[in-house]
């Protein structure tokens, strides 16, 4: 049974991030990240969303944040407006 949720947060000194997520028991099924942040290269947002799909629940937050950071590092990406840990917090809230 799929459950859908969303969470929105304006990061202090940063940007607004919205996460729409769905999950089945024990597993993330889909993640969509939207907002007025900046990410270069832009296409990386899809990879980030894909990387979160299939993650086991309950979410290992530190591990998920580290994984996101290594995705950014691998492409020398610039992310402005939120940090990987912020995204994981918002994702967790969306999954509640």
């Amino acid at each position, binding site marked *: 049974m799929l459950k859908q949720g969303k969470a929105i947060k304006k990061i202090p000194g940063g*940007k*607004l991030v919205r996460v729409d997520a769905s999950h089945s028991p024990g597993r993330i099924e889909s993640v969509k990240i*939207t907002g*007025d942040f*900046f990410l270069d*290269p*832009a296409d990386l947002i899809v990879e980030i969303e894909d990387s979160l799909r299939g993650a086991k629940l309950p979410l290992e937050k530190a591990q998920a944040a580290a994984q996101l950071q290594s995705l950014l590092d691998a492409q020398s990406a610039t992310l402005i*407006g939120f940090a990987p840990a912020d995204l994981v917090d918002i994702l967790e809230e969306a999954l509640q």
Partner: protein
Amino acid sequence: MKYRMIPFRYFSAAMNMAIDETLMEGIRAGGAPVIRFYGWEPSAVSIGYFQGLEYEVNREACRRGGVDVVRRITGGGAVFHDRDGEITYSILGPLSEFPADVIESYRLICGHLIDAFAMLGIEAAFQPINDVTVDEKKISGNAQARKRGVFLQHGTILYRVSVETMFTLLTVSEEKVSDKLIRSVKKRVTSLTDVKPVAFEELAAALERAFSQGREVELGDYTEEELTRARQLAAEKYSTEAWIAMR
């Protein structure tokens, strides 16, 4: 490097975004950097690359008002580009022309806007990450993208603003647009004519002068080839539902 500066001219939303991409292609192929000023005809809403269309735009209200909607290649927020209410600029060049640090590059280019306001006798300030403010109210929003060796920053300078119209077109975090909300935004957003009676042409001239300072600049225009390529991109990309509603 010598910049080609293209004076203010109106285009549709899709064309404006397509021209930026066309100019990026040209620079990637070795062309000179470009500074261009433009308006939006008809008026339009642009949303940031990562924004969810349905969360940001009241499309029915846009349709009713004859207002175009387009997605930018840059991040940032939703902007209402009133045909008579603002001037937009783009500056494009090879990455090597601009600071590698994102905030520093915003600071540099927003500095031109601050210089332009100073020429008009108005004190403005850079407000990181990407805004310019007057009396702590936002008067300019800016956004940039770096794609395969080419830098683009575009931004809008508010000349005259109707917060009420803006809110019929934009959706604000699912809250109902209340008088209270409009009042609070009026406290945070301003426009040139709210600060000082300045003619549109004076603003355009000040911006041209400010962007020319410390740069080698030559007045120019779009080439026919560029406009043809831009029309193609406007039709095949920027005006398609696949692009506008991508997220």
